């Protein structure tokens, strides 16, 4: 039906997605009625998952295409507003949806580096990159490296960084799918991962970027509704006003009072402090290092940057970054409220209460191990030290804390799945596009016909997805720490080449190659050695490096910096090496300078240095 009004679809986006949202609400009400009628929870969970996956598959099928521009860049026809929504769900992963509020709960002020880090990067995208990448107007991020620096070496290096960063990130999304599906549907973890794999392939296989774009918009609507509803109702119950983003200030005041009476020294809102509430300089340094790496990483991750190739104009690319961060903001400025309302519930209704009369959600989540309760002194009262809650439990348990029916918990699970699937889709497509377009078409077989190029792309898509599912299924949650690596890897390998490529004409090919290799190598060396050879790295770097027990290993914190922020070494090295080597070698030729001039201005033709006309 949507396809019949093809031209019409783009003109009727508002109506199509309004009807879709209405159907989704009706579907949720239907499940609520079934719950009321006594249908067991596990069947309701199956219906939710089957229902949403079917919708994604239908969109994926309707968006099937045999055209290259549609497959790679959604026909460059995505309006800024919808590209913003698609980017938001492309961006917000299982970690944002399920994990972030929990880490704010556990880490207090300092954990809010994730809020800053996962949003601030869009300013860099908007100002430094998106409009120029859109003007450049080809298919992939490595394309830019190929055109700007000439030849295949820079292109291949960009593909290497892209695939390294995106693959670890995608595996983490599949693990996220496995965790959610196994928890809510009672599937085994491995089966859940492969079910997630099917969910990803149905969205991307037939329609590439076009299909992924329109499913990501649909997934955004589900995930944002699912995220906002439970905490809004909880806010109404606790404070009388259904605006959690504003009202959690009241809850925070109560939390602060309870912290005092419970003898908690490090208050929730207390910055850069240890457990005794004392300020520590290195905590501040770590806060800024993490925020910096996440921001620069955001601005370097190709599955995000490639979304800005899909808008009709440079101007729309620019404003679509604004819409992206706005739609991300709706979730991120709510996350701190989740953390504080959950903390209030725990301090008020769990700690200091008799074990016999705890709220029902505690027992529920104790069963699956997300909450642990040990009456160490056998007095029948919950003490602060006897209660532990895992970070994933905060968002997942909020519907029950608010006393809502299972249908809302199922909605949250559907939202978490949407977040994980949409991100995995984007990552998978970024990788298969880079390998089929940049490696196969641009380097191996430049004469390949359209049909063959798309065939290769689809085959790669399936292979990469299977490989990802296999790694996720066999290693499971042990590899979740790898997510944080993706940011530092992308930032160290790509950021300097992208920014300098637009903003400094003097950047040349030897410079950027040396810079990318140096940044990437420093980052990978630091990541691997700090994680797996901690004591050795400490020996190498000296006493300012400390060892922290994590994941059953002794992980080194180089110079006292958390190992996930090693981009703080890689990024400056990349810039420095790029600039120094560029200065020492011949500046780029005039044709390259003309190319740079032509992408700096929104109108006019792009003058590629090798004389090839850009596809339009």
């Amino acid at each position, binding site marked *: 039906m949507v396809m019949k009004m093809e031209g019409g679809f783009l003109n009727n986006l508002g109506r199509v997605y309004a009807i879709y949202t209405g159907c989704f609400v009706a579907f949720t009400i239907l499940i609520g009625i079934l719950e009321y009628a006594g249908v067991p929870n596990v069947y309701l969970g199956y219906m939710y998952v089957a229902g949403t996956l079917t919708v994604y598959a239908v969109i994926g099928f309707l968006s099937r295409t045999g055209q290259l521009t549609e497959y790679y860049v959604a026909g460059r026809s995505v309006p800024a507003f919808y590209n913003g929504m698609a980017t938001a769900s492309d961006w917000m992963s299982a970690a944002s949806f399920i994990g972030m509020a929990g880490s704010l709960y556990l880490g207090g002020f300092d954990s809010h580096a994730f809020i800053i880090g996962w949003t601030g990067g869009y300013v860099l995208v908007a100002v430094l990159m998106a409009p120029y990448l859109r003007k450049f107007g080809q298919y992939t991020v490595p394309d830019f490296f190929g055109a700007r620096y000439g030849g295949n070496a820079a292109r291949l290096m960009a593909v290497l960084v892209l695939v390294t960063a995106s693959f670890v990130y995608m595996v983490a999304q599949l693990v996220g799918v496995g965790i959610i599906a196994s928890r809510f549907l009672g599937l085994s973890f491995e089966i859940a991962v492969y079910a997630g794999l099917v969910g990803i392939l149905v969205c991307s296989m037939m329609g590439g970027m076009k299909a992924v774009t329109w499913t990501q918009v649909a997934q955004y609507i589900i995930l944002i509704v699912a995220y906002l509803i439970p905490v809004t109702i909880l806010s109404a119950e606790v404070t009388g006003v259904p605006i959690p983003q504003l009202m959690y200030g009241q809850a925070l005041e109560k939390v602060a009072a309870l912290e005092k009476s419970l003898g908690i020294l490090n208050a929730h809102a207390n910055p850069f402090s240890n457990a005794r509430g004392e300020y520590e300089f290195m905590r501040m340094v770590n806060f800024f290092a993490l925020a910096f790496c996440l921001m620069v990483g955001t601005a370097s991750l190709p599955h995000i940057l490639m979304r800005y190739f899909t808008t009709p104009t440079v101007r729309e690319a620019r404003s679509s970054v604004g819409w992206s*961060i706005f739609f991300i903001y709706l979730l991120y400025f709510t996350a701190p409220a989740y953390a504080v309302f959950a903390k209030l519930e725990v301090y008020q209704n769990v700690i200091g209460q008799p074990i016999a009369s705890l709220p029902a959600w505690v027992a529920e989540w104790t069963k699956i191990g997300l909450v642990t309760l040990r009456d160490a002194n056998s007095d029948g009262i919950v003490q602060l030290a006897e209660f532990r809650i895992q970070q994933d439990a905060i968002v997942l348990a909020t519907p029950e804390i608010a006393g809502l029916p299972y249908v809302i918990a199922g909605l949250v699970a559907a939202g978490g799945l949407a977040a994980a699937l949409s991100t995995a889709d984007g990552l998978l497509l970024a990788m298969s596009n880079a390998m089929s377009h940049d490696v196969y078409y641009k380097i191996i077989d430049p004469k390949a016909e359209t049909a063959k190029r798309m065939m290769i792309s689809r085959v790669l898509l399936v292979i990469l997805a299977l490989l990802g599912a296999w790694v996720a299924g066999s290693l499971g949650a042990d590899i979740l720490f790898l997510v944080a690596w993706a940011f530092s890897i992308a930032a160290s390998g790509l950021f300097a080449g992208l920014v300098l490529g637009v903003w400094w004409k003097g950047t040349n090919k030897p410079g950027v190659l040396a810079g990318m290799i140096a940044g990437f190598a420093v980052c990978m060396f630091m990541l691997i050695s700090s994680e797996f050879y901690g004591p050795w790295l400490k020996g190498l770097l000296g006493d300012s490096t400390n060892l922290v027990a994590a994941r059953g290993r002794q992980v080194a914190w180089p110079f006292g910096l958390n190992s996930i922020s090693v981009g703080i070494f890689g990024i400056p090295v990349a810039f420095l090496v790029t600039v120094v080597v560029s200065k020492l070698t011949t500046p780029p030729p005039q044709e390259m300078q003309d190319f740079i001039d032509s992408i700096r201005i929104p109108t006019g033709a792009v003058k590629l240095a090798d004389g090839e006309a850009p596809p339009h």
Partner: protein
Amino acid sequence: MAAKQLSLEEAKAHWAKTSTLMWISMAIWFFLSFVVHIFARELNAITILGFPLGFWFVAQGSITGYVILCFWSSSAQNDIDREFGVEEE
């Protein structure tokens, strides 16, 4: 696509204005991302609607600023493009 061809001087002037806007945006970004949080402890002495101010900035203030900054800088860039006659459509 009857795009206006900028002279060398015009192109330079357009890029100079674009660069100035970039530096202003980066300065605001730097302030929201780093400078304001250095003073989190001091700002926490002030409480508004239950929020210690330093905490509010890290939880909601900076990111609200980012959203406004993104829309503002893109409209300011549109103005620059219009001034030089290189806006699209």
